């Protein structure tokens, strides 16, 4: 059977994309450049007023940190779950998914309870005499990071886990039999095989972070604005063209970042492989 004959499998996806995504994407492109005649005014405004570029860069930075944290924290968790017997795996995965049933609003509130002025952490620190005055933990970039990682971690764990289940543990056993040290076996056999899924998880978390704005708005300080906040404001003002320009630049930057991330991920993997020798 030729490769071409499988392409019909893509048709339903294409239909969904055409129906629901193509029109908005085309509108994004059109609105950003025609208002109603061709104009580069919106892109010019975006570039010349420092705030937009500034916030974009901040958004990328936060998203990168969140994605990397989720990967580093989540990978061993997925690995651990994968080591368990099948029946226990289901239960552990279920445990990981519990927080997703809670509205983000409520999870944000939980962070306020812990990190607040009169919060649990401040009270605990005061009780053991480490601090006299409440320490400001809420409304900081740190609080935003802690909460975003918490929200997105299940996604990274799930993605890593899905990629790991298919790895044949016999390969690792074989490596061990052939005299590889445990670390070597892990680095040279297991890691490369699970890498694709891990980078996919990293990319997904990154993309989702780029669109976040509720959590940063509720837990962050004045400098934790995300680009989605600015887009929202422009939409509410009915500045559709400028909002579209912002959306388009966000889209392009995200794609560039994904290409970079995938490339860097592979490069880092090669490094680890060499070091593992």
């Amino acid at each position, binding site marked *: 059977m030729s490769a071409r004959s499988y392409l019909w499998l893509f048709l339903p996806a294409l239909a969904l994309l055409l129906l629901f995504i193509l029109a908005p994407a085309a509108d994004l492109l059109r609105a950003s450049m025609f208002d109603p005649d061709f104009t580069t005014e919106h892109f010019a405004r975006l570039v010349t*007023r420092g*705030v937009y570029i500034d916030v974009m860069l901040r958004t990328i930075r936060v998203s990168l940190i969140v994605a990397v944290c989720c990967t580093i924290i989540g990978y061993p968790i997925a690995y651990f779950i994968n080591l368990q017997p099948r029946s226990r795996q289901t239960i552990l995965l279920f445990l990981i998914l519990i927080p997703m049933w809670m509205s983000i609003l409520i999870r944000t509130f939980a962070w306020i309870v812990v990190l607040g*002025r*009169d919060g649990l952490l401040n009270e605990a620190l005061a009780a053991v005499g480490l601090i006299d005055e409440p320490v400001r933990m809420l409304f900081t970039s740190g609080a935003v990071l802690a909460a975003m990682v918490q929200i997105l971690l299940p996604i990274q764990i799930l993605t890593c886990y899905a990629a790991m289940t298919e790895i044949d543990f016999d390969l690792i056993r074989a490596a061990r039999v052939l005299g590889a040290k445990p670390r070597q076996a892990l680095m040279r056999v297991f890691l490369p095989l699970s890498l694709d899924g891990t980078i996919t998880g990293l990319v997904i978390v990154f993309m989702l972070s780029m669109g976040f704005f509720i959590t940063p*708005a509720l837990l962050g300080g*004045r400098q934790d*604005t995300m680009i989605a906040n600015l887009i929202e404001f422009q939409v*509410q003002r009915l500045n559709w063209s400028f909002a579209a320009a912002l959306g388009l630049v966000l889209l392009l930057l995200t794609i560039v970042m994904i290409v970079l991330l995938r490339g860097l991920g592979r490069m880092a993997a090669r490094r680890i492989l060499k070091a593992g020798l």
Partner: protein
Amino acid sequence: MNKLLLGAAASVMLAQPVLAQDKVLTIAGSGGVVKEISERVFLPAFEEATGWSTKFVAAESNILLEVRTMVASGQMLYDAMEVSASAYPQAVREGLLEPIDYKLLDPNNELPDKAKKEFGVVAASYSTVPVQRLDKNPEGRKMESWSDFWDVEAFPGPRSLKQQPEYNLEFALLADGVALDDLYDVLGTEEGVDRAFDKLDELKPHIPVWWTSGAQSVQLLSDGEVFYSTTYNGRVGKLQESGIDVEIMWNGGALHTSHVGIPKGAPNYEAAHEWVRVRTMRPDLEAEYVKHLPYPNFAPGLFDAMTEEQAKTMPTYPANADLQFVANEEFWADNIERIRERFDEWLLE
């Protein structure tokens, strides 16, 4: 009482020509509690008066975009809609609203002039007001003005303001000694805007968080994350009832009005007027409504339908209204773009 009966009779008469079975009036407005109370108080009255049934659609912050899309596509799904204070000038400029026919709505001229706009009738008044946690104040002291709000020596502690320039610039100017009546003259000049930002500079280090939704500001006060914050007047009473020692400072608050309007191309223009009447001109219904949500309108005789104690908590109660300024939404519609950019840059500094 007579007036009330007359009003009811008039509304029945008005409704006659459009009375029909299985006719549905679709109304877009805020969701949540607002929707709940509206469905309990106003919708039955409208249904009784007209024989129509109703559908209340919860529409949130993007309602103007939605309505603009419906206007453009020539398919208006709403008969009437809530138009918030800041949305009104925008909706008018974009041509999204039908003019109100006051001959149809208010033939006896009962509504005061301030309730009647060309494209909408005032359905609710609310205030952006500073609120203080009395229990966090220094012994025996109480904030009386915006200058006190700015005085971090006399009133130490974290504060919060809404993350937007609107009304905050006015508050800053009031703290800087500008009189209520001169606010928009000062703000209309470049120096006035500079002056407001300079004043905000003073307070910036004492504002750990800038709130973005009404719920957040209330929660911040309730948790004690901040001691002083602006908020909408609506939920302060509930905060007090739940044992939090807070108090509204009406002095220097910003008074807003939100409207009920009829979107362009609404399928039931005349019946929509009957809805507008029920929503804005029935003191009996409105008195019930403000028991739950203290956002009064200008229904004739509304304050007579309330107890004195309740009336005092209303933003439009004369003693409260006199202390506040009426927010100039036109000014903001004209100037928000550039000031907002400056404000966002200022926040990141």
